[in-house]
């Protein structure tokens, strides 16, 4: 029983909940409006598209890869969607085509990484620029902004007495659905296995190449879906959409406890981290901190998340396999880092 309590306590998600509560208390002191129901419900709405991208990225990172092209994928897919819509096609049909394009861009990443075995960082750094360029080529002028209300309500509409944002429901639905895929299906298990030990996964008959391609397609599709919500929320589609959101997306994923080297992470963690990021940003706005100061805080949060994660896993591992420890002893700088970790985790 005590052990169980300890396990729950040491869970990353528990820390996130604590942090959310702490930031909530802080925000409440800044504005009496903060703790109203309408406000709390609306807190995450501007970051729903960030969350949807983070969910997609989570799949990629758990597999041990990275996709930094998602924001450009979002922009490229929504400008295509907008142009097709502006040409007179039904908005839902256009949205579907936009999604297919997003999936296609993800597939390009996936084939380069999965089939050609190229490093995902370099590939998606390239496609980050290429897709962004593509977005501007498709729609360089003013954005398209004539989307019907029946479409935009999924990004910016409200239910239940104008208080419950539909976008929030969309995000929770995806969190639930993708959470089930990640934690409850064979495919999800494949991701963790590949992310932890690709060779063992391959030897166990897991279709590694196919799965690695698929996660990039998922990441692309989620960027496409995030794009549709984005268009709904902001009412316009432009080529520079979401171009500054990468920091928030990566922070949500890493802060959510997804190990950057693959194999660990949970959907609830990412969801909680997203809420935390949204809350911190909102709190800082309430405190009238400038946008750049906010970025500093988010950047520090990202660094702290990794260092804390390192410390916790060091503490959790307790005694490391002797071999690993010995091998590290050789390099003095490393040895120093080691003792530091041990010292910190055993006060």
């Amino acid at each position, binding site marked *: 029983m005590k052990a169980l309590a300890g396990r729950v306590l040491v869970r990353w998600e528990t820390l996130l909940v604590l942090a959310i509560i702490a930031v909530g208390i802080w925000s409440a002191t800044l504005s009496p409006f903060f703790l109203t129901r309408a406000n709390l419900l609306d807190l995450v709405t501007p970051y729903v598209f960030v969350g949807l991208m983070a969910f997609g990225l989570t799949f990629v990172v758990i597999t041990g890869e990275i996709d930094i092209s998602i924001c450009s994928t979002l922009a490229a897919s929504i400008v295509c969607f907008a142009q097709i819509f502006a040409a007179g096609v039904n908005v839902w049909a256009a949205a579907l085509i936009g999604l297919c394009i997003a999936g296609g861009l993800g597939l390009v990443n996936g084939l380069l990484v999965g089939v050609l075995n190229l490093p995902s960082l370099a590939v998606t750094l390239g496609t980050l620029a290429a897709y962004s360029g593509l977005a501007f080529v498709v729609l360089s002028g003013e954005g398209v902004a004539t989307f019907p209300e029946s479409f935009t309500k999924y990004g910016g509409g409200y239910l239940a007495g104008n208080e419950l944002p539909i976008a929030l429901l969309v995000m929770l639905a995806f969190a639930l659905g993708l959470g089930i895929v990640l934690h409850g299906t064979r495919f999800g298990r494949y991701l963790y296995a590949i992310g932890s*030990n690709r060779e063992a996964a391959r030897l*166990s008959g897991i279709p590694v190449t196919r799965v690695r391609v698929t996660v990039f397609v998922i990441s692309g599709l989620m960027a496409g879906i995030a794009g549709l919500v984005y268009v709904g929320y902001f009412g316009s589609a432009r080529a520079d959409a979401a171009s500054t959101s990468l920091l928030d997306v990566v922070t949500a994923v890493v802060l959510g406890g997804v190990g950057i080297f693959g194999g660990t992470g949970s959907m609830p963690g990412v969801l909680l981290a997203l809420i935390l990021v949204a809350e911190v940003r909102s709190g800082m706005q309430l405190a009238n901190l400038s946008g750049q100061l906010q970025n500093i805080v988010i950047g520090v949060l990202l660094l702290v998340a990794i260092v804390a994660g390192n410390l916790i896993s060091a503490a959790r591992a307790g005694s490391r396999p002797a071999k690993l420890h010995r091998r590290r002893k*050789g390099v003095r700088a490393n040895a120093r880092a080691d003792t530091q970790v041990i010292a910190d985790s055993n006060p």
Partner: protein
Amino acid sequence: MSLLELRNISKSYGGVRAVDDVSFAIEPGTVHALVGENGAGKSTLVKIVTGVIEPDDGELLIDGQPAWIGDAQTAYRLGIVAMYQEPTVFPDLSVAENVFAGRHPRSRLHTVDWRAMEDDAMRILRDLGVDFGAGTPVRGLGVADRQLLEIAKALSTNARLLIMDEPTAALSPNEVDNLFATVRKLRERGVAVVYISHRLEEIDALADTVTILRDGRHIETRPAGELTQGEIIRLMVGRSLDALFPKEEAEIGDVVFRADGLTRRGIFADISFELRRGEIVGLAGFVGAGRTEVARSIFGVDPLDGGRIEIEDRGFRPRSPRAALRRGLAYLPEDRLHEGLVQPMSISDNTSMAVLPAVTAAGFLRPRLERSLARRFMQQLSIKATSPAQVVRSLSGGNQQKVVLGKWLAAEPRILILDEPTHGVDVGTKADVHRTISHLAAQGLTILLISSELPEILGMSDRVLVMREGRLVAELSRAEATQENVIQAAAGVREAAA
């Protein structure tokens, strides 16, 4: 005075005694051969002497003074240099720079003195009689050349004690001759060379002193002149086949697997054999003989360049492990840490990994089914763990190995390839594994057993195949398969020598 003396050195890994109370001395200006089967404790001793690991017990004396070698740098300072079996090269750098990595010769301005570096490297390479220049990028070198590079690296250090672990594994006869000449030159300079090799004729040709290890214990240290190859073999293997191998009699059925002329260029060639239902076939040979590589290619991990496989009289093309699994093959890899297990996952997650389609419904996991599967194998293989949810990382080596075995048994294969199934596990686990293997064969499973432990091969197998240098060199029936016969075939010693 001895250059290095080992006194009562012991080292255990998780209950297994890798080195047990070993004492002997190494004299300067001699070539000291260290022989023993795989697992006899040679590598552990090398690691202790080079400061990679610390002994649990005993002491080391250098020039008669007790010395503590805590890390690789200290060993290096003391003039103890090891040349590793697996080369540690920088593929992007030139040969000269690989030789002098981390300790470039410097000019007066403290810059890298390329000319001196290349000249020095060239001189060493010339001594070795190699055909590549000091400026060649190492990426372009093959395994043999990298081996020579490793030797050059060791030679460049002015070592007092040079440890060479299987230096000739990948060399051509000509290169071996050059190496020998170099080693002799070193000996004349007063350097002590610890020479580890499976090739007894090399020991014959080179060694002044021979130390024989077996099961972690020191058996004998004698002048090489007093020992014939036959005696060395006898001392290496002198072990009784005890009750550790409870071989059940199984009914041997039809041929279920047929390999014909399997070839992977540069790794192995022209491998042909058959496996029958209920049969345990041992695949013996020294490390590097190509046994693991053959198994990996059959299982679709590495591609084959030629040859044909038939499983149950139908052709089979090993495209991927997934395809092999579908045809009823399973392969327990040699390296369980990197290839067998997903360490951060639970026992049940690992057990079900190869059979996920069977424990899912419409793609959804069924945790209860997975847990019961895991429990079944935990019981069958007596895995000691609190629950199926326990993370594999926290298990002992033996239990980890059992989980890997459980994973492959869960796949219900018809042909199971086991690569070193008891490597580095304790005696109890070993017995459990052997009992399971035997029992499975009795039930009609076909098993190809790769092992470097001869007693294991001989105790378990109905038939023994022996590989050497990428070739299948012998096929011995249970009656023919004695320790001496197998070692002779594996080492390439002529009948007359025994």
